[in-house]
């Protein structure tokens, strides 16, 4: 009994160390083209909803590489930290955010710098460079269930991080 309570205490400590409660919600932006909000802090978790580049959401808590988020419509779940940015992303260069001159530390302008316009201009100037296969390879997406099956079938047991 005593040993078991010690074990629970140890487990509790591990959970506490791995979890960072954010002092009040922090607003962050989605910095990937299309992001997934998952039911659990794991890539193999069920997809609750999808978010788009520039969407703003509230981060309530962090657990290792994962953030617990709430969307404007009230839905919530987990996103990997690498999909989020503290910067506000102004979707149009001419938007109010861009005009008020927020510094680069606070603001990223979508479509600014190297963008789809620049790629289009690059294509017209470099006719020998063909993007067909780049577009094709971008369509190859492995669903989480296939990853899970792949690991299981191959007897590959993740040690830490990633799906955990």
């Amino acid at each position, binding site marked *: 009994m005593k040993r078991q309570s010690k074990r629970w205490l140890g487990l509790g400590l591990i959970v506490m160390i791995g979890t960072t409660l954010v002092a009040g919600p922090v607003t962050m932006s989605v*910095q*990937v*083209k299309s*992001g997934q909000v998952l039911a659990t802090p794991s*890539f193999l978790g069920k997809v609750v909803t999808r978010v788009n*580049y520039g969407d703003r959401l509230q981060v309530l808590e962090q657990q290792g590489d994962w953030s617990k988020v709430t969307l404007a419509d009230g839905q919530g779940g987990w996103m*990997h930290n*690498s*999909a989020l*940015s503290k910067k506000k992303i102004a979707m149009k*260069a*001419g938007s109010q955010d*861009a*005009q008020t*001159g927020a*510094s*680069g*530390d606070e603001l*990223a*302008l*979508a*479509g*600014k*710098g*190297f*963008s*789809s*316009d*620049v*790629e289009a*201009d*690059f294509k017209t*100037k*470099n006719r*020998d*460079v*063909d*993007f067909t*296969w*780049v577009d*094709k*390879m*971008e369509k*190859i*997406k*492995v669903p989480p269930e*296939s*990853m899970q099956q*792949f*690991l299981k*079938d*191959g*007897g*590959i047991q*993740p*040690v*830490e*991080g*990633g*799906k955990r």
Partner: protein
Amino acid sequence: MSLRIDALAQLLSVAAAALALAFVSGCSTMSQVGGVVGQATGVMNADQAEALNKSALAIEKTFQDITPEQEYYIGRAVAATVLVTYKPFDREQANAYLNLIGQTAVQFSAKPETFGGYHFLLLETDEVNAFAAPGGLILVSRGMVRCCKTEDELAAVLAHEISHVDHQHGLKAIRKGRLTSALTTLGAAAGSSLAGGQLAEVTKAFEGSISDITSTMMNSGYSRTTEFEADKGAVVIMKKMGYNPAALVTMLERMQVQLKADNKGFGKTHPAPEVRIAELKKTIGTETQPEASPVRQERFQKR
């Protein structure tokens, strides 16, 4: 607001003068040059000079700190440029298997989410080679896959390439001057879309950046330190994922034999396998040979 715009217009006109001088002197950075020139020529007062310094610094930082979206467009053009030299291997099943291993391995990397995600493609060449374009577009030659005798070894190769993306090694190959050359164009276009001459200027910087990255990846290669860093990152991914990282060593041992007769591809752009093995052993020790897995071997051979 109008005061602010007037002030900005004034600052930009001074910035143009500052830039002209920067071309002449050739060594001042844009973030410092505004104040020095403006004050020296008496065009603006100290406050204005300070404002320009801050503004130039902000623009410089914005551009040097390439956003995931910009990294994505750079990566697309890098991959497309590599595909001018190497043709894709158009076999759906083989590419699906490559993506299954690769995209799963990505989940165990430090930054699994990139703007457009990670995607893998085989190249139709016997040359032993692989390329990691910024943002996560990874191209692997059939010669490289043949160099691997197990799924674990192929996973090690992919983990090495993922690690290059993770550490943004491609972006670091862009010459500093490239980014600062587009600085004034972006500054002048603040608040509006790029058009005409401005677009041409930024595209020029873009072309230069693509050329810097592809010539490093395809000809000169990264530094030894960079390759060792990618190997170390690969070991971390392999361990987290559950593969034995010693698979990277066994793959390199085979590559050592194969590359002796062929100084192309990896032989030209990477440190000798024996050097990488020696460095790797400092990280993983003398790990035993990876255990054979019949299931993994079967699916690897069926690919």
